[in-house]
């Protein structure tokens, strides 16, 4: 932990080994570890799924999914069924990625400091691109191609370039927001660990860890809610248009 040098770039990462032409960095290993852990957890839940006397993991998962479904219903105003898989996957993956350096401290001797995968711009950019592609996917699947394209000329046709720019810029903002928040917590942690004397360190690091946990939770929630809002913009507005057309 004391090897956190301020001069090393937090944007680049340690290359662990090379797999053919692809350099495998620490982030990739941690990301695949998180994915493996989540898949194993899901398989565990699926095997033990039962109606009577559900175990605690099943109850926690069901509560989380119900809560996300209520959020989706509150924002979009539709049946949350089609949106749950994407939104819940994003939420749970980001949450697990943000927590990974806190819930798995015993792995640190093998990998050095366990950097959260979301503290890398490539991971968050990939997640934001998923959202960017999901918006037209849901828009076209639920309202038809023509109705989806009509959202771009709303409210008047002259707004079309601005709507396209806003689509691109909000994707960038989505990626950079998550990356910046998680990375700043991580850097803060590293800086204070390097600066502060070891006597007060345990107390302070606990407090900082708590702060980072809150940030991680809120950022995962914000990412999920913004995903819902963007998809809702493609789905809900057109539905309102349709009702207006019917009344005319």
């Amino acid at each position, binding site marked *: 932990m004391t090897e956190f040098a301020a001069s090393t*770039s*937090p*944007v*680049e990462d340690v290359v662990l080994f090379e797999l053919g032409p692809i350099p495998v960095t620490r982030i990739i290993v941690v990301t695949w570890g998180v994915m493996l852990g989540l898949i194993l957890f899901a398989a565990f839940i699926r095997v033990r799924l039962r109606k009577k006397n559900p175990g605690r993991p099943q109850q926690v998962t069901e509560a989380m999914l119900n809560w996300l479904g209520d959020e989706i219903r*509150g924002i979009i105003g539709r049946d949350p069924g089609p949106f749950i898989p994407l939104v819940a996957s994003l939420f749970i993956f980001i949450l697990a990625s943000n927590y990974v350096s806190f819930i798995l401290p015993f792995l640190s001797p093998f990998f050095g400091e366990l950097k959260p995968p979301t503290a890398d711009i490539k991971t968050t950019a990939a997640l934001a691109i998923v959202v960017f592609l999901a918006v037209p996917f849901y828009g076209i699947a639920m309202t038809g191609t023509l109705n989806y394209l009509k959202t771009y000329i709303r409210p008047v046709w002259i707004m079309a370039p601005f709507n396209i720019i806003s689509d691109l810029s909000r994707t960038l*903002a989505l990626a950079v*927001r998550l990356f*910046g928040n998680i990375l700043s917590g991580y850097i803060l942690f590293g800086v204070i660990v390097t600066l502060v004397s070891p006597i007060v360190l345990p107390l302070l690091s606990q407090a900082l860890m708590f702060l980072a946990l809150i940030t991680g939770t809120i950022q995962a929630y914000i990412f999920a809610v913004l995903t819902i*809002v963007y998809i809702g913009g493609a789905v809900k507005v057109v539905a309102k248009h349709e009702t207006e057309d019917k009344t005319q």
Partner: protein
Amino acid sequence: MTTEMLAIVVAGGTIAIGSIGPALGEARTAAAALEAMARQPDLAGTITRTLFVSLAMIESTAIYCLLVSMLLLFKVGPLFEKVAAAAP
């Protein structure tokens, strides 16, 4: 003053100035949301959700500043240094 030192100074200035606006804006947002929640406790859930989303939107300006200062510190500064070293 070398270019790397200049980059460090500018990076510090970027994040210092760039975080003033979002801080004021977030404070106003939180105060307004609290007031709204005190007036209408029934709508607390909706208000909280909107509050978080708008806080994230406001915050992104500060995050851009953080990104710019990090680029200056870890990408642009060393790049200038390399260029200066390569120049005769």
